[in-house]
């Protein structure tokens, strides 16, 4: 680009800028005309008259310029001219511009979508009145190491009565209760959450339609007295199940077989405690219930308090602890001390997803940083390619400030479309992210791109432009016309200073990329470790179908047992069924209830706590391929026909391997007797242990198996059971579900199938969180690595080109192609090794942030570090290989002649 063309361009732009300028020109021309005419009248010849007129005016152009200055818009005009110039110069190199815009767009887009998740889950305040004053209360039991336990209703009632720091104290049931709704076209299972009567009004949320619960409403009582349970629907349920009609208020339905009535619909934006809730049920307790011991031991609710005005969280926590200590002394169980604590509701609900989300945000931020370094390097090389042009302009008197501004504007001109693309990709990425997030991992399922997210994107874009734009701008500030023109006159390529900066940028890119690849590598290794974990059963070819029998039609063990016996008999008779059984809990889903226990013949203080209990039918071990380690499986004979609650001699039980190892070391547990009472008495139900079975992991694949006590469903019936069905080799077990559904319908048309799931998917689900994190981190790491390798390639190629004359000389003096190859490779490798060393050092400091997320490996796992380092060195070699090979194939004679 020539300076003259540039100046002409500017001049034209200046003169035909707008009407103002045209008018100014006309005005000054008129002035000149009048003045010239006056001069002619004084007797001057026309040419002299005109010259004097111009002199008198002080030059038409200068005057015009002075008038423009007086307009006070000079700065803006210059700026808009520079902006136009920046865009024009970028459009002249479309490939470069497109690359940079794309790299920026991906970086900003990925950052924006992760941020939208962080914003939706962690940062956005809960949509309640003064949410900062809401706190969750919990119980802790120091002796058993149980922390942040659900509270018992009795303690909740005590706190509500005595703690004055709380303006309001309400509670909700943390787990979803599956309720069967009938009285509609088809039976339906919905997820309900119990809340106390004043819960919604404490949050400051009013129903969209109908009314709130009242303090007097009490689900448990309503059920007992066969009264009518009021239901409040989520807006989603209202729309999808009840067609979104206002007449839904007052509509009678049946819930678990008892009368219920829809009394309200919550607003669209309301989701508590998670977005998966379909409806809310009222819960409450009479204060006399506090007398019963079980009521103090039933840890079932999460109390939520609103602080009284002027009370700080610290003061409230102190009062809560003090009152709980006093209550514990008065009426507590000496074997189980109760302590209480509290935490802000929002932090509590966000819980342990905070760390993984922040790790993702950090990772994506690092990726964006690499993208900025990459773009900065590209711009720097581009600017140094124009160093001569810049130097000429400085020599001709152009202000350095103006040059810096122009280069910065060029960065802004790149950042604007980059940021716009980033927002578009970010919104799309948010939708993809929503789909990738494993079910139940986050409290919210939709990430809204609100003004905060957009502000974040704009800030990130501006910061990015500043980061990568400062490199060429600094270069422009240092342009020394003399040196540059002398140096540039000799050859091509960047100055030494520029090369050093670009080299440093590439080292930084490699360092950051190795950090990300290491992090991703650790997660991938962790998943590999998880896959090695034996869940304790064989998930292949097994499907689980969940049923909830309503208590109204199945009031006791005879009806329940009869139903499941008949169903299992029919299922087993289906073609394509290898075996079938039922269990009250599914492994890897959620452990059953826990209780204390005592073993016959031991000292009273040798009781145990927290044994997981479940009930299963004969054949479960065979269907799930759970090994029988000692004794026998349950048989059809392990069933009562009456006297379920009476103390009997023929109760049996199985225990799992951990329990056998922990509580019967060096003994044979088979034949020993056990009861689920801590202090056995005459009414205690003793069970004889008839077998020991392999450990199934109860809640998560990453959690070691807990001690478990299994009772035969014929002796200890449960209404809610999971039917597990194994199909023969080569069949997909999910295909058997319609047949099972048909059998259920034949037996009880009003019974819905709650859920049907392949056990393989249950196993996969339990790794879903880790897989989700690993996939995202691996994706970011891949992009980062590619960007860094492009950087390595660029620097190697430039270096090889610059040293061509030297290589030519070397080869002329007898060096071989492979010597040249080695020289070039060495240069690229130096950058990679430097970056890698920095990256590994940083990783050793940083990866411990992952320790809560990793399973089975240390955050400094040497295998991962070695593999990733090898991979990076190989990739770096490959990136510098291409330019090196090109350099090695030069024709020395041609090169030397060209000099």
């Amino acid at each position, binding site marked *: 680009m020539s300076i003259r063309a540039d100046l002409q361009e500017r001049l034209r732009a200046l003169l035909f800028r707008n009407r103002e300028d045209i008018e100014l020109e006309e005005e000054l021309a008129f002035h000149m005309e009048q003045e010239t005419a006056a001069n002619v009248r004084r007797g001057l010849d026309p040419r002299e008259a005109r010259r004097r007129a111009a002199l008198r005016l*002080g030059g038409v152009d200068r005057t015009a310029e002075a008038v423009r200055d*007086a307009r006070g818009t000079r700065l803006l005009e210059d700026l808009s001219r520079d902006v136009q110039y920046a865009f024009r110069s970028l459009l002249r190199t479309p490939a470069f511009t497109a690359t940079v815009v794309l790299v920026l767009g991906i970086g900003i887009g990925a950052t924006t979508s992760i941020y939208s998740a962080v914003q939706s889950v962690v940062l956005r305040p809960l949509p309640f009145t003064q949410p900062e004053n809401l706190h969750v209360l919990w119980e802790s039991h120091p002796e058993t190491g149980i922390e942040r336990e659900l509270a018992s209703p009795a303690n909740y009632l005590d706190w509500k009565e005595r703690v004055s720091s709380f303006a309001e104290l309400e509670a909700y049931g943390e787990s979803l209760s599956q309720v069967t709704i009938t009285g509609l076209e088809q039976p339906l299972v919905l997820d309900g959450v119990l809340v106390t009567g004043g819960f919604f009004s404490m949050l400051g949320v009013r129903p969209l339609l109908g009314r709130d619960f009242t303090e007097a409403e009490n689900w448990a009582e309503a059920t007992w007295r066969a009264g009518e349970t009021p239901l409040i629907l989520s807006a989603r349920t209202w729309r999808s199940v009840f067609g979104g009609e206002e007449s839904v208020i007052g509509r009678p339905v049946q819930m678990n077989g008892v009368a219920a009535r829809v009394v309200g619909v919550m607003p669209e934006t309301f989701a508590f405690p998670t977005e998966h809730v379909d409806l809310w049920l009222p819960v409450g307790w009479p204060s006399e219930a506090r007398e019963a011991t079980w009521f103090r031991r039933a840890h079932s609710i999460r109390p939520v308090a609103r602080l009284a005005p002027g009370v700080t969280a610290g003061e409230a926590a102190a009062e809560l602890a003090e009152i709980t200590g006093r209550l514990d002394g008065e009426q507590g169980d000496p074997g189980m001390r109760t302590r209480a604590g509290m935490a802000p509701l929002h932090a509590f609900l966000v819980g342990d997803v905070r760390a993984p989300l922040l790790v993702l945000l950090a990772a994506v931020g690092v990726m964006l940083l690499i993208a900025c370094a990459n773009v900065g390097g590209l711009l720097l090389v581009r600017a140094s390619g124009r160093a001569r042009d810049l130097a000429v302009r400085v020599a001709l008197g152009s202000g350095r400030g103006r040059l810096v501004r122009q280069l910065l504007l060029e960065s802004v001109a790149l950042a604007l479309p980059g940021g716009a693309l980033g927002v578009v990709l970010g919104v799309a990425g948010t939708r993809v992210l929503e789909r990738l997030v494993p079910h139940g991992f986050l409290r919210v399922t939709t990430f809204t791109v609100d003004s905060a997210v957009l502000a974040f994107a704009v800030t990130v874009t501006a910061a990015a432009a500043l980061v990568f734009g400062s490199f060429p701008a600094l270069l422009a500030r240092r342009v020394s016309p003399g040196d540059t023109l002398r140096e540039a006159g000799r050859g091509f390529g960047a100055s030494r200073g520029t090369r050093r900066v670009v080299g440093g940028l590439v080292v930084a890119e490699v360092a950051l990329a190795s950090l990300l690849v290491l992090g991703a590598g650790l997660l991938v290794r962790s998943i590999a470790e998880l896959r090695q974990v034996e869940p304790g059963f064989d998930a292949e070819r097994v499907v689980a179908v969940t049923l909830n029998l309503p208590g109204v039609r199945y009031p006791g063990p005879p009806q329940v047992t009869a139903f499941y016996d008949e169903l299992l008999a029919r299922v087993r008779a289906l073609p394509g069924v290898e075996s079938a059984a039922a269990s009250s809990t599914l492994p890897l889903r959620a452990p059953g209830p826990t209780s204390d226990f005592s073993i016959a013949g031991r000292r009273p203080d040798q009781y145990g706590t927290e044994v997981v209990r479940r009930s299963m039918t004969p054949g479960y071990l065979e269907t799930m391929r759970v090994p029988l380690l000692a004794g026998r499986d349950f048989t059809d004979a392990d069933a009562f026909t009456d006297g379920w609650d009476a103390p009997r001699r023929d109760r049996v039980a199985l225990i799992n391997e951990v329990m056998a190892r922990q509580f019967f070391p060096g003994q044979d547990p088979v034949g020993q007797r056990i009861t689920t009472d801590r202090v056995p008495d005459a009414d205690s139900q003793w069970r004889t242990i008839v077998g020991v079975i392999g450990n199934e992991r109860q809640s998560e694949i990453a959690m070691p198996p807990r001690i478990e006590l299994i009772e035969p469903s014929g002796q200890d019936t449960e209404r809610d059971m999971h039917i597990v069905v194994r199909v023969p080799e080569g069949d997909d077990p999910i295909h058997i579900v319609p047949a099972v559904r048909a059998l259920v319908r034949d037996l009880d048309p009003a019974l819905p199938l709650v859920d049907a799931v392949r056990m393989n998917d249950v196993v996969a689900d339990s790794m879903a969180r880790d897989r989700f994190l690993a996939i995202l981190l691996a994706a970011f790491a891949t992009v980062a690595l590619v960007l860094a390798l492009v950087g390595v390639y660029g620097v190697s190629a430039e270096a090889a080109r610059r040293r061509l004359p030297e290589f030519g000389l070397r080869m002329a003096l007898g060096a071989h192609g492979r010597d040249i190859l080695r020289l070039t490779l060495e240069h690229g490798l130096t950058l990679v090794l430097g970056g890698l060393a920095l990256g590994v050092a940083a990783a050793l400091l940083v990866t411990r942030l992952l320790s809560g997320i990793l399973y089975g490996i240390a955050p400094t796992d040497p295998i991962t570090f070695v593999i990733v380092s090898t991979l990076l060195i190989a990739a770096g070699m490959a990136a510098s290989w291409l330019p090196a090979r090109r350099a090695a194939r030069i024709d020395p004679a041609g090169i030397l002649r060209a000099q």
Partner: protein
Amino acid sequence: MVDSSLLQGTLELLVLKTLSLEPMHGWGIAQRLEQMSGEVLQVTQGSLYPALQRMKRKGWVRSEWRSTDNNRRARYYMLTARGEKQLALERAGFERSVGAVFQVLAWSGGVS
């Protein structure tokens, strides 16, 4: 020739005064100024137009395109209401300054 920077804002004051007589184009203002001052004040024309631009921004004058007597298009400037007020203000200020200058020049007392 008198430099317009003799006293701050003098040029603007003179232009305001000139325009208070009748709307005029730029060249006309320069001519009229010279004529009224008995050829003592010669306006540096180069500073006249920026001054007009500044006064326009301040809202003292406005401009419009009109035809001259011999049918040429020219930009005429005229005083606004604010310009009238400004003229009175500037005039008072100028008189005070000039008075002060005279007072200094006429000083005959000693150094106290």
